[in-house]
């Protein structure tokens, strides 16, 4: 529900500029926005829980709350700062106090009991994996190709899955699709843009490549998604038209079958 098959958006801010974006993110309708918001909240709370579990296990509070009577209303730390100054809520002392409260609370105790029998290495591994998933996992893959006539083309990839591989890292997750892995190829380096076929897994796929002058390997556009022939041909036609000149009558192609796409 949260992802779709790769589909194409074309943005043409000016006749000499075009951006082709292929994404698995469906159109952002209100229900989808709400669902994504809920998912983010869930992930953040998961991360917080994991961090808290690690805290209770490894950084033992200096004075464990032995007497249950003194926990709720009288923390053994400086008294609450006055609520009139909101900045005081962020002081280290206050945070420590808050942690103590949490540790002593029923869910905190439950969590501590839950993690207690686990060996430390297992606990760290599990919580590491959970943290990675909660903070750095990306839901959608978005790849784009920006074409500027006279300047060149830029490919950008924001891959689903572990954000460390997809580029952008934590910051990329925080600001949305802010930190994709990009590659700019200036016009004079572009020898050709073409569509090719290759074996991938049990399939033969179409893909769009840029042949770069002086490089042995070609640059594959949309390397993660490898969209189908329809999208690839649309992009190819658009790139040729934008990069070089307006396409001839009826577009590029060998005969009717190519032109129709």
């Amino acid at each position, binding site marked *: 529900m949260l992802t779709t098959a790769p589909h194409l958006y074309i943005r043409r801010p000016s006749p000499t500029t075009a951006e082709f974006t292929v994404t698995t993110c469906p159109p952002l309708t209100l229900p989808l926005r709400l669902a994504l918001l809920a998912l983010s909240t869930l992930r953040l709370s998961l991360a917080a829980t994991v961090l808290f579990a690690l805290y209770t296990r490894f950084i033992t509070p200096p004075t464990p709350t032995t007497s249950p009577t003194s926990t709720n209303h009288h923390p053994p730390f400086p008294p609450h700062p006055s609520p009139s100054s909101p900045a005081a809520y962020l002081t280290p002392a206050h945070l420590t106090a808050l942690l103590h409260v949490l540790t002593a609370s029923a869910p905190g105790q439950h969590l501590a009991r839950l993690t207690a029998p686990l060996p430390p290495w297992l606990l760290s591994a599990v919580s590491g994996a959970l943290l990675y998933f909660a903070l750095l996992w990306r839901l959608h893959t978005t790849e784009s190709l920006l074409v500027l006539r006279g300047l060149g083309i830029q490919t950008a990839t924001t891959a689903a899955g572990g954000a460390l591989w997809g580029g952008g890292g934590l910051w990329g997750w925080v600001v949305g699709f802010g930190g994709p892995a990009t590659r700019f190829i200036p016009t004079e380096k572009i020898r050709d843009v073409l569509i*090719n*076929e*290759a*074996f991938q897994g*049990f*399939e*033969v*796929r*179409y893909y769009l490549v840029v042949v770069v002058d002086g490089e042995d390997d070609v640059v594959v556009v949309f390397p993660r998604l490898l969209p*189908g*022939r*329809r999208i690839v041909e649309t992009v190819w036609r658009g790139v040729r038209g934008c990069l070089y000149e307006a396409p001839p009558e009826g577009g590029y192609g*060998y*005969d009717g*079958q*190519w032109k129709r796409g």
Partner: protein
Amino acid sequence: MAPTYNIAMVSDFFFPQPGGVESHIYQLSTKLMDRGHKVIIITHAYEGRTGVRYLTNGLKVYHVPFLVIYRSATFPTVFSFFPIFRNIVLRERIDIVHGHASLSSLCHESILHARTMGLRTVFTDHSLFGFADAASILTNKLLKFTLSDVDHVICVSHTCKENTVLRASLDPLMVSVIPNAVVAENFKPTFNPAETTSHSFSQNPPPARQLGPHDPITIVVISRLFYNKGTDLLTAAIPRILENHPNTRFIIAGSGPKAIDLEQMIEQNVLQDRVEMLGPVRHEEVRNVMVRGHIYLHPSLTEAFGTVIVEAASCGLYVVCTQVGGIPEVLPSHMTVFAKPEEDDLVAATGKAIAALRANKVRTELFHEQVKTMYSWTNVAIRTERVYNGISGAISEADFYGYDAANAASWSATRGRSGVQSFALIDRLKRYYGCGIWAGKLFCLCVIVDYLIFLILELLFPREKIDMCPDWPRKVVDESNGRKEGAR
């Protein structure tokens, strides 16, 4: 308007590797494309030749990445080829799968899978096999397996047909003979001086090549130097031929494990000045070697067709060959001297050929034109097209198999409409079951597994998700005068 087909040629053997099967597939595909069909070739990846490629005339070649085990044949993994084969067949909209060469496991597998997918299949056999040794028995069993359920079989000679029918227990009616051909333009004899000076006045027929009694005669041998090509026979015969006939010399081209024997023979008899060994030559250089000689000697022990002797005759060489396999069918008797595959007879036959040449009794300069009219790839393509028409029902059963065959009561019970093999799984199983007590059951099991894999693939990779390939512009054949035009 004749029907056109989308044809997939499948074989382990294709360019860049040189050879007879390879050039057969290429030439046949090219001529079929000229006749308006769409042809693709599926082979395995060669070093430096991988992925999907187009040859210059728009022939598309899929080099499927696979493990090669022996002499560029791939490892027989019965089912592993199916997913990618299905993908290629669907995206290219293939109607007919045409497999080549009985040693190619890729070809056998694809025929099995194609039948499972409900496609018409044709198999072309290019070689003869024995029945006795272990390897032959295994190959024959495998052949029997795939050919139990094939629509039609093509053999390159009548001897080859006989051999294939026996090996695979086929109905002889479903086996056609379509010989190989040569590109006669690539095998022209050297020009006579008269022709080179004035092209427009080139005589027809060309003047005879006169050979004086003491002019040297060159005997050419071009073959891979393997046991089955009769290199041992050659090693034994050469000293005796050279002893009997002064003013003769040999040119031997080719490489192989028996080359060392030949070299030893040359050393022992001190024949360095009369026997020239060229080593391996490329196929396009074969003509240049051939035109240096007068006689072509072909000592092969087994041969399904022997394209090379046609090439030699086309170059204007008198041919001495062993009377084995399909060789006697290949050339008319005035171009050849036959010998039994034994040393004495080969020496005698070569002597006869030398004597005939010295007496100027053989008009070798006419051979080229004669071969040109006998063998052309266009003709092969027309005959192959007729096979395609027959199996797809475009021409009637009576036309294709002959009138009496259409009514014969002995016609196989598992056949469906009009002599065309039915695709129903139960009918296919019946055909496989007859292959042997144990083998029949094993083959049925394989077919059932193949069918299940097909169903799973339909679920995992649904047809509508597969991108269709745009067709290369087809050539349009004008049937009225046979003239070919490019599309638009």
